[in-house]
């Protein structure tokens, strides 16, 4: 049922299919008609969300993270790159938490607490930019494919099938390896990491947008609109796109979580910004490996922060997905 969208080309094997299935399922939620009570999809979803503990926890974590990311850099006790405590550092000796430095110092005498606060912003930036990149490019490709498909012409079908084959190919590759191929070309910088992770997220959004457009193409209100003579693009822009919003928000939330983790992985592999004085949780975690014997806490702080943040986004995203989908509720 969910897998038999009309005229969908066969993907290159179940790998693309499985990831694709979940995305397709999400996409079709865009076309869910209002339920018996006549409420719109959004309002009903929000109501369910308010009752779900998972959603609440996730939302709280995300909110905290965003607030810290936005406000943090203005309330730093010390500049994050200043080696204020350098004279206390010796090889094998890094001071831990104290009254002046709540989380202690890092291996070059910088205040760890300030770096963690500042890192929240950098990490959020990486996640948001990567997700935005993935969404824009993905939506473009997916939107074109979906539109081409809905046009009904032969050429349109062919274009859709070619684009989707390409997308499924990307979907079949492990995201980390896809990301590093991109980063290898772009060199070592934070921008490269953001783009690379974005590229890994692109096929997901492409498939999502395309799926949601196609799912809606056969809905009554679309057929009615075209029967009334409303031009096709107005239907697309006026109805189909806005209805696709909900699944996109869900997917974006989930992608943000994985983007942060993948970026940390790329930093670990050495592909991040070589200027490691600028704090970012992924790079801080990667660098802390060298200090594990001396002060393992330097690895624990960013790791826990990444886990909690990713978890928050995941909880929120998953609960939104469950709330959207009547089939998943129980």
């Amino acid at each position: 049922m969910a897998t038999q969208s009309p005229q969908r080309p066969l993907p290159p094997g179940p790998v693309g299919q499985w990831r694709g299935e979940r995305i397709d399922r999400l996409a079709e939620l865009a076309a869910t008609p209002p339920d018996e009570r006549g409420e719109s999809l959004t309002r009903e979803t929000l109501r369910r969300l308010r009752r779900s503990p998972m959603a609440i926890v996730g939302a709280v974590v995300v909110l905290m993270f965003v607030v810290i990311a936005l406000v943090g850099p203005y309330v730093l006790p010390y500049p994050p790159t200043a080696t204020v405590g350098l004279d206390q550092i010796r090889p094998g000796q890094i001071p831990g938490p104290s009254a002046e430095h709540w989380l202690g110092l890092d291996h070059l005498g910088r205040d760890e607490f300030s770096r963690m606060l500042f890192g929240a912003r950098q990490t959020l930036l990486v996640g948001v930019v990567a997700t935005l990149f993935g969404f824009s490019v993905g939506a473009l490709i997916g939107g074109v494919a979906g539109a081409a498909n809905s046009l009904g012409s032969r050429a349109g079908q062919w274009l859709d099938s070619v684009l989707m084959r390409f997308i499924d190919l990307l979907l079949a590759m492990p995201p980390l390896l896809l990301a590093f191929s991109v980063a290898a070309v772009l060199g070592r910088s934070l921008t490269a990491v953001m783009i690379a992770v974005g590229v890994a997220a692109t096929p997901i959004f492409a498939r999502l947008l395309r799926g949601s457009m196609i799912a809606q193409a056969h809905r009554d209100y679309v057929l009615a609109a075209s029967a009334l003579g409303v031009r096709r693009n107005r239907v697309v822009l006026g109805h189909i796109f806005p209805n696709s919003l909900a699944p996109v928000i869900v997917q974006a939330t989930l992608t943000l979580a994985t983007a942060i983790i993948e970026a940390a992985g790329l930093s670990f592999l050495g592909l991040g910004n070589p200027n490691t004085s600028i704090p970012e949780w992924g790079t801080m975690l990667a660098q802390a490996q060298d200090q594990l014997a001396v002060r393992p806490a330097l690895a624990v702080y960013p790791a826990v922060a990444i886990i909690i943040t990713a978890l928050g986004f995941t909880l929120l995203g998953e609960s939104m997905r469950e709330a959207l989908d009547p089939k998943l509720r129980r």
Partner: protein
Amino acid sequence: MRATRFKAAVVIAAVSALVLSGCADSDRDEPDAGANTDATLIFGTEGEITTLDPTWTSDSISSRVNGQIYETLVRLAPGTVDIVGGLAETWEADETGTVWTFNLRDGVTFHDGAEFNSEAVCFNFERWHNLPPGLAQSPDMSYYWQQLSGGFAENSPDRTDLGDPLYVSCESPDPLTTVITLREPSAKFPNLMVRQQFGIHSPDALQQFDADNIGGTPAAPEFPVYADEHPTGTGPFMFESWDRANGEVTLVRHDNYWGETATIARLIFRAIPDENARRQALLSGEIHGYDQPNAADWDTLESNGMRLEIRDAMNLLYIAFTQDQNPALEDIRVRQAIAYALNRQAMVDAVMPDGAEVASQFSPPLLPGWNPDVPAYEYDPDRARDLLSQAGFEEGEFEIDFWWPTDVTRPYMPDPQSIFELFRADLEAAGIVVNAISVPWTPEYLAEVQNGAAGAHFLGWTADFPDTINFLGTWFSRPLPQWGFDNQSIFDGLAEADAEPDSETRYAMYEELNAEIMEYLPGVPISHTPVAIVFAPNVTGVEASPLLDEVFATAQISE
């Protein structure tokens, strides 16, 4: 006059060499009754070896492994910087200093059973001298022969830096006497020959396994079968196998060794690139020792009972300026400003191990020729800013491309990233704009910076042999793209020092040169760093060598 004193000095050197080698022999401990002579010693290295024919290598890992297989005419007494007899018992030069006679050791056999004699020695020298133009003469391939001789029988046409070779000829008047003739006297001969790259190979094996058949490119050379599978020397260990998948080279005891046979039966070098992994492997007993433990780990290792040996700091970390790349650097005030802006002491205290010190000049205090009275550049950011504005650069107007290497640790540079970050902060605090350019050590960093791509860059040096010329001469004896300057006075001064046969005079010349170089300031010397080596508690008998040239044949592993 000069010649006679020279001859006397050489005779004294030869006699002391004889005495010292004798002493070294008798000082060697008898194996402990409790030590296990069937033991296998496993040593962790920072990476894989390049190949088993040291002619083609210059990296420290290959040198270490090959140093157990091959022997040289002269060598370092274990644990010291004294040059004693190896395959040659005594040696002396004639009055001109250009004809050297080596009296070889008797009763030495190669691993393949062939007899070691002066014909074999000449075969080896002629082989190096006659390396064909092309890849074999590339600076990556036969680096040390080029350092010694400066040229070949036939130089590659595109190598303008190769000249008339120092080596002229080799004769073997009798099986135990070798006579080598040089074009002119040099402080490098025979001292540089303590390096493993001058190990003597069995001529039979060299010919049988096509040792000169090197193909490919400098970045991807294809080594001959000899180098990959049949290294044949005279040393206390023979090659058994090279497991490339696991990065393990296995050597076994050479039972027909001319001296005392090795006290262990097998010696395995295992590549463990990650320092944390090496430390853990040692702590868990999987390996018996490794080189260059992180300074941060010294305390942990010692408190766990490991035997940490700290070698003297025969190295230097420096920042080089490439004046060609950034003409602003031609102004001495700019160079001085950079020197004043760097807080070298703070960096050394925070990052470098105990015993490291800030360098005041381009050679270490341990070697004669070090000058206590050179111009000092204390940390003074205000002075730095002053000098910059005198040179016409206000805050934020002077920009420099600063290169630093990633994915590497060197004895003189245990943590490039931390060092770079601290210095960058210092420079920025003095109003200098730093373009940080990080490049992986392999494959590009060395080639790039030595070709003058950087404005300023980090590099360093560990001594090949214990003489100041090995430091100053490596960098300042002729115009090099790495430094991008032309100071004839310094070049001439070094050439004179190199050719000066009397050591006292030479040392005085070195001191003057050090002062002159620090006045000119082609770069900023940063630090000398002691380098440690660590062994498991039950391993004894391996003496730490300041030049990283440890001898494993005397190792003992007790139960």
